[in-house]
């Protein structure tokens, strides 16, 4: 083989090896980091394993919010208007968090069966409903629509 052919071959080999290595690692990393999304109904029906990191989308149930007076612990229920899931969280809540607002929580169910949130997300644009919340309400069916209409602020 001519020397420049050899060089070209080694460059192509180098690139292919690098690329396949990168793609393999990427897919592995991807498969390790998928957070599945569940609706409150799915969680209530016990579809989630203990310790599995998931996201739940739903509305903060009216009248469900409690906060400790001497610590930053809070608890509230997230609902798709069919089932509720009680969420425990310690820390500051996002600005737009309030009852009747669509939110997404990230976390896992602990050994006692309590959902411990590591992150609570509320959207910065109040006209905008996140896909997760919308999907949860859609899955819960038409009854949610009615609730939604009555609980949405006038815009």
């Amino acid at each position: 083989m001519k020397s420049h052919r050899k060089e070209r071959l080694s460059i192509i080999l180098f690139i292919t090896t690098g690329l396949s290595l990168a793609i393999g690692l990427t897919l592995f990393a991807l498969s390790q980091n998928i957070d599945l999304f569940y609706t409150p109904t799915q969680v209530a029906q016990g579809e989630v394993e203990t310790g599995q990191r998931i996201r739940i989308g739903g509305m903060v149930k009216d009248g469900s919010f409690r906060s400790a007076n001497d610590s930053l612990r809070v608890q509230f229920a997230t609902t798709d208007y069919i089932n509720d899931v009680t969420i425990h969280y310690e820390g500051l809540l996002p600005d737009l968090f309030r009852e009747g607002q669509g939110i997404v929580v990230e976390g896992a169910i602990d050994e006692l069966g309590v959902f411990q949130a590591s992150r609570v997300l509320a959207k910065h644009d109040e006209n905008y409903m996140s896909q997760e919340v919308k999907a949860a309400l859609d899955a819960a069916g038409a009854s949610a629509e009615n609730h939604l209409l009555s609980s949405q602020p006038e815009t």
Partner: protein
Amino acid sequence: MIPELGQFSLILAFCLSIILGAFPIIGAHRNNLLWMSLARPLTAGVFVFLGISILILAYAFATDDFSVQFVAQHSNSALPTRYKLTAVWGGHEGSFLLWTFMLAGWMLAVAIFSKSLPIDFVARVLGVLGLLCGAYILFMLATSNPFDRIIPLPPADGADLNSALQDFGFIVHPPTLYMGYVGFSVVFAFAIAALLSGRLDAAWARWSRPWANIAWAILTIGIALGSWWAYYELGWGGWWAWDPVENPPLITWLFGTALIHSLAMTEKRGMFKNWTVLLAILAFSGSLLGTFITRSGLLTSVHAFASDPSRGFFILGILGLAVGGALLLFALRAPLMKSEFGFDLVSREIFLLVNNVILVVASASIFLGTLFPMVYQAVTGDLISIGPPYFNAIFVPLMIILVLFLGVGPLSRWKRTSTAYLIQQLSKVAMAGLVVGVVLPFIILLEFSLAATLAVALGAWITLSIVKDISNKVSNKITIWQGLGSLSLSYYGMQAAHFGIAVMFVGVGLTSYFSSEKSVLLQPGQSTELDAYSFTFMQSTPVTGPNYIGDEAQIMVRRNDADIEVLYPQRRVYLASGTPSTEMAIDAGFLRDLFVTLGEEKESGAWSMTIYVKPFVRWIWLGAILMAFGGTLAAGDKRYRRLRQRRIAAENEQISGRFSFIKS
């Protein structure tokens, strides 16, 4: 009446864009000088009418014209004037008008600063940009007209600008980001024009380089501003969240970074032309993808606009036509151009190639992680999200490899470099870098950590190799100053940008591993300790702003019993929309930031708050500023201008020759 003028002006700009997209390109094909020379005046026309449009929208905001739906949704009579004016880009419709106006601005810049380029090339570049501009305006007119009215009953007052946007960051971040984003359209148009004319050569690369550098520099600043804004406004103490809408600018930036390196290779050695064109197309696609993701509402993100699917389809259509058309043209024309492989396995070409491969892989893996949830949902119907761990696991190792090569690349030579030479040059640099990496973090932070050592050692590795390279270049001159003076601006630009990477690397590494935070509940008078600092909550007082009310806390920060600073975080409620908002207080420093976000008051009178100590966080943005400075410096290199002047003469002759041929 006045808003209708704005819309009328938009329609005129559309018509002019379409003419611009047709006649100059056809003229260039048929060698019709008159049609080609229409390009510049038409570009000026598009710019003027889009300018009038955006000014009229700003006027509607300034005069509280709530009969305009977009104004009613994004402003309020109590909003301070600076936010009224900038609320123009506070929502989907207006921000897209700004986006399009930015494109027109770049087009005008091309028309003005391309006097030395051949007229057929300029005609093609402006024609391509005109088509793009026309598509954007059509999108606005068809799906998102900012001048739509609420008739017959306009609201008495507006719904107010989203409170999270009422901030300095909102004034500067979107225009800068858009300007950088859209700038890659110019490089794209240069590539398309080169494909159309078949003149894909070193000269084309030389013309494209300053534009690519400037667009890249502005995009760097735009992303850094976004990161800085998120850091102090969103209040979670982070500077990057791998949010689906943060990612497209980064994807574009990584492709853009690969592009400016690949352009160097095409200009200096006439190689990898096809690859460079492909990168120009990819960088441009990244910018369109960003628009698509933000405006289609397909992904969940803090940035997403309230959306409707028809917009998504329209942008997807533009994306498909522009990128698909470009790739088709590329496929048809590319095989015509041959690149020869005239270099060894150890050479600057190889290091640039490695740079390109790493950057493209990094970009592609971010692209994958960003769009994977969307694809997954389309296929399985299940919603998922990809968290920061994925992005960190991929991106951090790739950047470490990139930086290792970055230290070697600039010292290597074109065509062939001996490995022994590189080892001789760099072994001491590597050793010194390692020593600095071990010692420096230990002195500053009084603890040993592998991550900090790695970050600092890599930063030192880049910095010392820059010093080594400059001292090599200076050593054979009579005096140091003479040596430094003989180096070109583009060389200094490169080194400044690389030094920026080093600074950013150190910042990212140290702030990621040594930041501490703590959420506490404090009664007035109580204190809490974090790292070497003590934070005492003195008291809280009510505050009133122009369009909000709230509470302000006073927090005394002490270190070693010496007072450092009093911080005043606020908790506000915006009156028009009733939205609460936290304003954190930051004591910024070169070596560390201290910051406090205020939560809420409990019945006991205690306040919840989160306190952060973030060492070296400023270095991240300082690095970005250095990079952008380097990019700008390189674009100012005098060889671009000199060659232009030379070319002017040659081209004028050529054109007049052609012209006389047509006449005869």
